[in-house]
């Protein structure tokens, strides 16, 4: 290899500049690409995590690319050697496929300041949990006068034609079915009771939405008045003035962790770790918990506050007591069969 004068000069200047401004020593091949979720998630991450990350890394270049977990997997698995994404966000189901397909690099736990402060359930070395998502009963308080307290309320005859669900393509739809099975004597390995219950629910079903986003639209349109729903989706609707409330079922709120992963072979692995570090920081999670984001924190140092304290849990103890987690390793094994069955059996 030969160097000409200009290259040496440029290299020398760069080295000099890097020692003057230590922040610049984050050598960047390209912008750090953070694949976040679509909609309000992107806003939340852009407004809170990104500024914290830029401060910590001396203004490293970052781009947000919003998409669904499953799309991230498709993109990364199509270009394993040179992935277009550096940090991926995963729901529990996709998370296991990412690990199974060896698409993620482990998070450098030993170098992390915040990892030890995460709730034990979020301490996952393959990619720590940076927030929880919660699924409970969502309803329109103008039409549903008595706040629901149990999943069984969806079967009440007065809700004929006004109940909404999603199909099993989404985490929401699948988690609801598993929980249904659990409350009726089944579980991750025995979905039968859920399908039987869904057949009984059919007179009440007003809509089977293709995805959770469409389910939210249906509340807005008055098509449905009660449904299983994601806490954050409800907050977005409430912020837009749609009359909709979230209720915790007495059997517990279905919860799942959203984990952040460093993409394997990422040219920005160090920056990717720094971004996840920012996402775990108590000050970031405290800010994300407040309006208008209402993101449920995983860092035990965060004091529960506002709507989250009122509607989800007043502290980490209550959170642990009221959250129900499902075993997605079992769910993933069975899911294809369930989806096929749902395709065939659930008609409105």
């Amino acid at each position: 290899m030969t160097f000409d004068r200009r290259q040496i000069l440029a290299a020398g200047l760069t080295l000099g500049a890097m020692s003057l401004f230590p922040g610049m020593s984050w050598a960047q091949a390209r912008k750090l690409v953070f694949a976040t979720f679509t909609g309000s998630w992107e806003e939340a991450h852009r407004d809170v995590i990104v500024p914290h990350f830029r401060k910590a890394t001396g203004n490293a270049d970052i781009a947000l690319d919003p998409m669904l977990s499953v799309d991230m997997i498709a993109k990364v698995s199509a270009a394993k050697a040179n992935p277009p994404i550096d940090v991926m966000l995963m729901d529990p189901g996709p998370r296991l496929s990412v690990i199974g397909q060896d698409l993620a690099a482990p998070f450098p736990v030993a170098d992390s300041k915040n990892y030890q402060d995460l709730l034990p359930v979020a301490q996952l070395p393959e990619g720590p949990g940076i927030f929880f998502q919660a699924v409970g009963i969502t309803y329109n308080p103008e039409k549903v006068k008595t706040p629901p307290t149990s999943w069984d309320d969806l079967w009440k005859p007065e809700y004929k034609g006004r109940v909404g669900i999603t199909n099993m393509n989404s985490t929401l739809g699948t988690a609801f079915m598993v929980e249904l099975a659990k409350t009726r004597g089944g579980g991750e390995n025995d979905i039968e009771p859920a399908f039987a219950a869904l057949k009984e629910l059919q007179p009440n079903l007003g809509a089977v939405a293709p995805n959770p986003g469409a389910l939210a639209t249906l509340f807005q349109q008055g098509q449905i008045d009660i449904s299983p729903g994601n806490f954050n989706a409800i907050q977005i609707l409430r912020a837009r003035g749609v009359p909709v409330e979230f209720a915790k079922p007495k059997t517990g709120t279905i919860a799942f962790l959203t984990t952040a992963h460093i993409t394997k072979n990422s040219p920005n692995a160090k920056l990717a770790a720094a971004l996840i570090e920012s996402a775990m920081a108590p000050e970031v999670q405290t800010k994300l918990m407040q309006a208008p984001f209402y993101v449920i924190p995983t860092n035990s140092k965060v004091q529960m506050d506002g709507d989250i304290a009122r509607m989800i849990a007043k502290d980490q103890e209550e959170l642990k007591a009221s959250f129900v987690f499902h075993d997605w390793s079992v769910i993933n094994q069975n899911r294809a069969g369930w989806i096929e069955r749902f395709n065939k059996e659930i008609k409105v």
Partner: protein
Amino acid sequence: MTAATAITAPGLAGPATAARPRIGREWTLALPLAAFFAVFFVTPLLLLVAVSLYADAEMTRFGLDQYIRFFGDTFNLAVLGSTLLLGVKVTALTLLFGYPLAWLYTRSGPRMQSALILIIILPLLTSVVVRTFAWIVILGRDGIVNNLLLSLGLAETPLRLLYTEGGLVAALVQVQMPLMVLPLITTLSRLDPNLLDASAALGAGPWRGFLKVTLPLSLPGIVAGCLLTYAAAVTAFITQSLVGGGQMLFMPQYIYQQTITLHNWPFAAAISIVFMVSVLGVVMLFNLLGRASKGYVHA
């Protein structure tokens, strides 16, 4: 085509061959496009065929298992059938509504024409997602249609319109309408108005004139419009899922579900190939009709 024959004819007839080499190299003009198609269309298609030939979801061994699985289950055939039928319904309705519209256009004065063309093209200028969401607003329990029916006393309780096949067909007909109307306008405005006058002079009433003169002569436009509408309706992923809902399964969502949710790429590829071949079959049928109609027109 006709121009090419016109140029070659003298070359063949006489000794003047100067024009020939130039014609011989005309095909090179098509090379860039051909290369583009080869790289971005044929190659991915061949890859798709290759993926569909894996026997298992992990893509370790080859076999025809995916196709056997598809054709071995009546549920899959029902999904394919209902998708192809959906296209037929949408195409028939677009033709029914689109033909009078195109006819009205060719019979109107220039001012009316520019107003009509704006109305016809307007749907193309809005995103398909926006148009589809508009249909959710129209068809919902609290939507325009239900409110109208309730206030007129025609219904006691809100009807279920959203997430039904009827609603989906209505939405698709509106969304695909320009694809039908534009080719029809092209054909109809090329019709010589003297032909109708002549048929009237020979004693044909307006309906007879339409059935014996206008309709046969506009067949090429009908065929082109049907072809476009059909292909667009059966593959309309967004409208199908947003207006059709999560329990009505058509081929595009089926493919999406198998790839994105279940990561079963070989099965998804096999369904795609089956779907593509089926749609091509229908398109070829349309084309045959078109050719037959041309023979009819020239006869």
